[in-house]
Structures are given as C-alpha cells and as structure tokens.
C-alpha cells in the first residue's frame, strides 16, 4: 500500500523533537553562531530525548529498532530548529549507526552500548578530506593490511567533536573500496588539530582536522560490512536535514511577507513573491517525497535503495540552495543582515553539497 502519514509512535516522536527544536535549538541558534559555542546543556538535552537510543535494538543497549524513515522525520524537525545544533545532537550517530549497519555481531555488542547510555558523550567519525575533488567512494586516506593489523594514513577535516571523542570511525581506502575502522582516542600516530572554524556556517559545531600517520588498528576494528549502506543512510539523513533548513526559511519568509506592507498590500500578496513561495513549497515537498521513499526502501531492503538515497541527496542539494536563497531574497535587504536568520540558513544550505558523511540518522 501507499501511505504518506507517519504512524502514532512517529507522530509522538516528531512532536517531542519539534518542541525541543523550536524551544531550545532555535532559541539558541543565533547567539551560538555568533559566539561559536552552544550554550551549556543544549546538546545534552537533545540527546536525552533518546532518538538514537530508540533506534537501537535491546541487545545492544537500546530500546527500539532502526528505521531510516523515523530517523528522517526526526532529522527534519531538528534541522528546522538549527542545523549545527542538530548535527551536534546527532554526532554520536556517526559512530553508532555505521557499526549497526556494517559492523560484525562482536563489534555491535562491544562498541555500541557504551555510547548510547543516557549521557551524551563524544563519539564521532572522520570521512571528509581536505581536497577539491573529495569523493567518499574514492578516498585518499589509505588502510593497508599488515599482519593482524591495518595501518592508516591520511588527512581528514571537519571532524565534529574529534578532540573530545573517546573513539572515532575513520574511513579509508582499502584496495579501492571505502571501509570504516574504529580508532580509539590517543592511538599512536593520531593527531588532532586545535578547534577549527573554517566553514562559512555552523560555527558552534566544534570541528577539527585529524591526521593519521601510520595509525595501527587491529583487523578486528574493521567494519567489514557494506559501506554503501552507511553512505546511503547518510544521504537520506542529509536530505532530511536539508528539508528542515529549507522549511525554516520558507516559513520565516511567509511570516515576513504576510506582515510587511508594500504599495498598499502585503508583500505576500504580490504574485512575484507568492509564486516564489509556491515554488519553494513544491520543491521542499518534492525532495521530502524522494527522501521518504529512499528511507523506506532502505528500511525494507529494496533493490535500488542506494540509488534512491543518492537521488534524494542530489535533489536536496539543489532544493535547499534554491529555497534558502529565495528566503533571503523575499526579505530583501533585511534578509542580508544578520538580524534575521535567513542569511544563516542560506549559509547552512550551501553546505549540503559538501557535507557527505557528516550526518546519519
């Protein structure tokens, strides 16, 4: 059957997440961006809602079942509040979900339970590389087998919470195939930079450059499962986050355009503006449909699920840029100044073209 309505459990989750997103994330977003720091307790509070815990089976310490659809619904709500805040709350997902999706039974039992305790702890993953032609399926970081170990070398960037992380997954090229390796903090050859603030947005999300110089990890730390499954889940998550950012911008633009007078009517009553908003709404819905379908295909292990996730993510890249650009445009000069959040969302929006692997739900 076709059905386009979240189930009761999902509705309750959306409800709880959206309250946090609005009352906490959104409320803190502007200052967090200016100060490049989240207020104390903000991320922890988001974590305590238990979105990730609810998607981990009991045998690994959770109390639910993994669902990409549910994850996408939650991600949209979180990003509607604030994208960097959403990514901060979801950072431990970067460690847990790849293990769940591509790890062995032993790895799941060993590595997942300590992370998903009710207290937020930094666990992260390093995928993106500082290169103009970065491609997650063709990495420059390498892992070479040596006896019972693998030796990892390469440079990673934009690794959230790397300095605090107790462990991280690093993705490396193993004979042309991308694979994840679990690396503990303090491993020999692992060096983490000072906190970087290089991106044009998301200043509050702590990010680091991470270098791997002949870092040796046991073969038992290699995630031997399908990296494609991990990247597909990440693509769905990013698409869902993009939808949240775009919707924030549209809603703000609508409120503004319905308030502001121009030539004796409201701005929103001008077709030139109304049509822009209609198109924003349509493109958001188009990407949302692709994202939901891709998530459902992943959950039900459909053929072509990875391709659908890819298409959803590509769709999201264009959609979020178009929508957030127009959000600024509808506010005109006011959209360009930092008193209104639309310029921040536009900066957030451009990031989706490069965020590959920075989120997973």
């Amino acid at each position: 059957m076709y059905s386009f309505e979240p189930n009761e459990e999902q509705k309750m989750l959306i409800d709880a997440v959206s309250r946090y997103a609005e009352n906490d994330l959104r409320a803190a977003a502007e200052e967090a961006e200016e100060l490049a720091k989240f207020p104390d307790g903000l991320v922890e509070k988001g974590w305590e809602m238990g979105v990730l815990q609810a998607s981990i089976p009991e045998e690994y310490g959770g109390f639910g079942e993994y669902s990409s659809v549910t994850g996408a619904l939650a991600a949209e709500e979180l990003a509607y509040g604030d994208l960097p805040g959403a990514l901060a709350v979801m950072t431990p997902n970067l460690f847990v979900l790849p293990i769940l999706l591509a790890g062995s039974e032993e790895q799941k039992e060993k590595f997942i339970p300590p992370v998903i305790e009710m207290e937020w702890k930094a666990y992260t993953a390093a995928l993106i590389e500082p290169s103009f032609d970065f491609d997650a399926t063709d990495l420059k970081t390498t892992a070479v087998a040596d006896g019972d170990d693998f030796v990892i070398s390469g440079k990673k960037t934009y690794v959230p919470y790397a300095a605090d992380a107790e462990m991280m997954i690093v993705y490396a090229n193993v004979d042309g195939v991308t694979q994840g390796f679990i690396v503990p903090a303090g491993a020999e050859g692992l060096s983490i930079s000072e906190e970087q603030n290089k991106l044009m947005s998301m200043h509050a999300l702590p990010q680091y450059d991470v270098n791997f110089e002949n870092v040796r990890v046991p073969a038992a730390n290699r995630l031997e499962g399908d990296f494609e499954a991990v990247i597909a889940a990440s693509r769905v998550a990013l698409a869902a986050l993009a939808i949240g950012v775009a919707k924030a911008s549209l809603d703000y633009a609508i409120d503004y355009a319905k308030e502001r007078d121009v030539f004796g009517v409201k701005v929103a009553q001008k077709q030139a503006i109304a049509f822009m908003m209609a198109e924003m709404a349509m493109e958001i819905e188009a990407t949302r449909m692709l994202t939901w379908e891709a998530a459902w295909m992943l959950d039900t292990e459909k053929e072509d699920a990875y391709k659908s996730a890819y298409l959803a993510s590509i769709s999201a890249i264009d959609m979020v840029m178009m929508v957030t650009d127009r959000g600024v445009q509808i506010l005109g000069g006011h959209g360009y100044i930092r008193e209104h959040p639309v310029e921040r969302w536009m900066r957030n929006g451009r990031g989706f073209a490069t965020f590959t692997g920075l989120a997973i739900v």
Partner: protein
Amino acid sequence: MTIEFEIPKPIAQQQYVLQTVADNMMRPHSRYFDENEHEIPWDYITFMHQAMKASGAGSLAPKDEKKKADPNKPKRPPIGYQMLAHMLEIISWGDAGMYLVTPGGGLGAAAVQSAGNDEQKKKFLARFMGDKPTFAAMCMTEAGSGSDTSTIRSTAILDEETQEWVLNGEKIFVTAGDKALTEYEQAGKGFIVVWATIDPEAGRAGMRSFVIEAGTPGVKVEKFEHKLGIRASDTVTIVMQDCRVPFENILGKPTVEKTTKGFKGAMATFDATRPLVAAIGIGVARSAVEFVKEKLTEEGVEIRYGVARNRLTAIERDVIDMEIMLRSSWLMVLKAVWMADNRKSNALESSMSKVKAGDIGTKITQKAVEMMGPLGYSREFLLEKWFRDSKITDIYEGTGQINRLVVARNLLGYRGSQLR
C-alpha cells in the same frame, strides 16, 4: 497509518496488462495518429472499451448495488484514484494523445460523479458500461474566458413553461467534444457537461454545469483545432443555440444563493482530477527519460550513480536531474491521489502535483531533445513528438500559473480576493 511506498497488489496486477496495451496498441500507431490529425483510432478505442468493461477498471460508473460488501472480509483502504493515476501514467507512456480518446467518460463523467445526485449518476453514467465505447466531455473554456472561469458568458435560462433549461453560448478547446457529441456508428450515445451561468449578475454564485446529451437539437461541433501535440485527441469548438435540456440535467442547485458553494463544489472536481492530469504528463516524461537512457546505453555512456556530484559529467548530471524530477513529481501525484482516496482535503497537494508535472514534463522533454542532438529533433523517433505532447500538461486543467496561484493561496491562507 505509516509511511510506505509499496505499490498496492491490485494495481501491480493491472500494470502488466496496461503495459501490454501501451506496447502493442499504442506505440506502433503513435506516429500515424500524430501525422493524421483528426483520424480516430477506433481499434484502440474499441479494445479499451471491451477491456475496461471486462475488468470494471477505470470506470467511473456507479457500482452495481446488488454487490454488497462482504462484512466478513477485512475492509481494504480505497485505492480508486491511485489505480487511475497508475493507469493513466502507463497508458500515456504509450501515447498521451491516444490516452485522451480512451472511452469511459473522462472529465465529463467526473463532473457528474462529483456534482451530480444519485439519480443523475445512474442516468448519465451507466452508459459507459454499455456495448459500445462511449464518450463524455467537459466544456468550460470560452474564447474570452480561460483560467478565469468567473467570466463565463454562456447562459442557461429556465423556460418556466416547459421547465427546460435553454442554453446559449460557445465553448472552445473541448477535449473529446466531437466523440461525445457526434453520433458515430462505432460509439454509444455520449454527452457533454457545459458550464453556464443561470444569473449573469451573480458572478460565480450563478455558475452551474449542465448535461447535454448527444443528439439534442441546438448544439453542434463547429471547429476542430490543429495542435502542437496530442493530435490523436480531438479539441473542438461547440456552439449552443437555444439548446433545450430537461430541468433535471442541471448538476447542483437550480437556485442562486449568495454563496459560491456550487462553484466551489465544482472546482473541487479539479482537486480530484489535477493529479490525474499530472499523471498523464508524467507518463510522457518517462517515455523521454527511458529513451535517452536507452540511447546512451547503446552509445556506451554509463551513468555513475553514487559518484560525488562535483565529479559528474554534464550528461550524467542531466540524466540524474531528469530522474529526480520524474520520480519526485510522480510521488507528489501518488500523495495527492492517496489523499483523495482517503477523503483528505488535498487542494494544495493536488495543485502542487499538477504544477510540478507541467514543469518537469516540459523541462525533461526539452532537455532530452537537446541531449539527443539531430536525432532528437528528427521525426524518425518519437522523442520530438513527446516534446510536443508534453507541453499540454503545463496548460490544460489549469495552467502552471493558475495552479501556482492556487498553491500560493493555500500556502498563505489567502482567499482569492487577497491574492489575485
């Protein structure tokens, strides 16, 4: 409820049959009926009538009342509109022009279905299950009245003595108007549904629709249009000169009230039909996407799905964008018809799906012709025809612009008077 995208079983079963029809009864004749405009594809029409009659599929005729639902059987969610959307998409993948001459009542019957009373439904809709293929058409547009239907000038005046409505006026761009009104030997007796005012002073509040049966004196087909595409489908002008129809042929209330409820009710028909019209456009667009992918494969061009976007070639980007447009627009149609089936208000989703389908159909087929170079432009292939056929999706059943207005009003919570 939950979120899922599994095609319902009854629809999946139907798909196979429809694909056979599209492959064998439509595609091989596509070019012929494009080049011989106004010839009627009776073979296709007769076949479709028999097939639909046998399966009961796609018919808007009221269900046989004797067949009471078995109370012991679990109640299945309704999928009627979802079934129709799938059916239209596949058949239009075959040929959109030929689809538009599929018998079964089309928009005319849809109007009776949504605005008529039980008696009218029985009287006017039963004919579609008869021995011969039968047509109905919707007459809305006038020379001076397109998207702004409140400016309709056709009149219907009640003759108090005979209790008949007397209709006068001229309707243009009537799809299948000829087959609905002209009595062909191969076809049953059809009808048209005409929009007219019963009180020219009342504006939209005076607007009603009337059924005029084939053979009624005072109504005739006057002109056949020559079109850019969908040439297998007749688009005609219909003139009414003191055309008298029985009192009971009015759909909706015969009196003018201060509200525009009747008009709005009729506009609600479009909430149901817009996603279906979108589905037709999507079928055409899919033809083009599949053609392009097939030709690229023949030329040894591979599309590397999954590669970072900044590493894709221009051709790969184009194909991927086409697939994104096609799929997202189809899912928007499915959501709109799913809402219609589940009796959820879908004015926003319905218009969104129509705008999107008009946009993507135009973009996809234009791009496809460009990508295929000189051969894309050639009449040797059907691609150039799909390019011409697809443009109509952005125009009929409300242009992309009027539907944007509907979307914007719904989005902003504005009435027509607030956003003109």
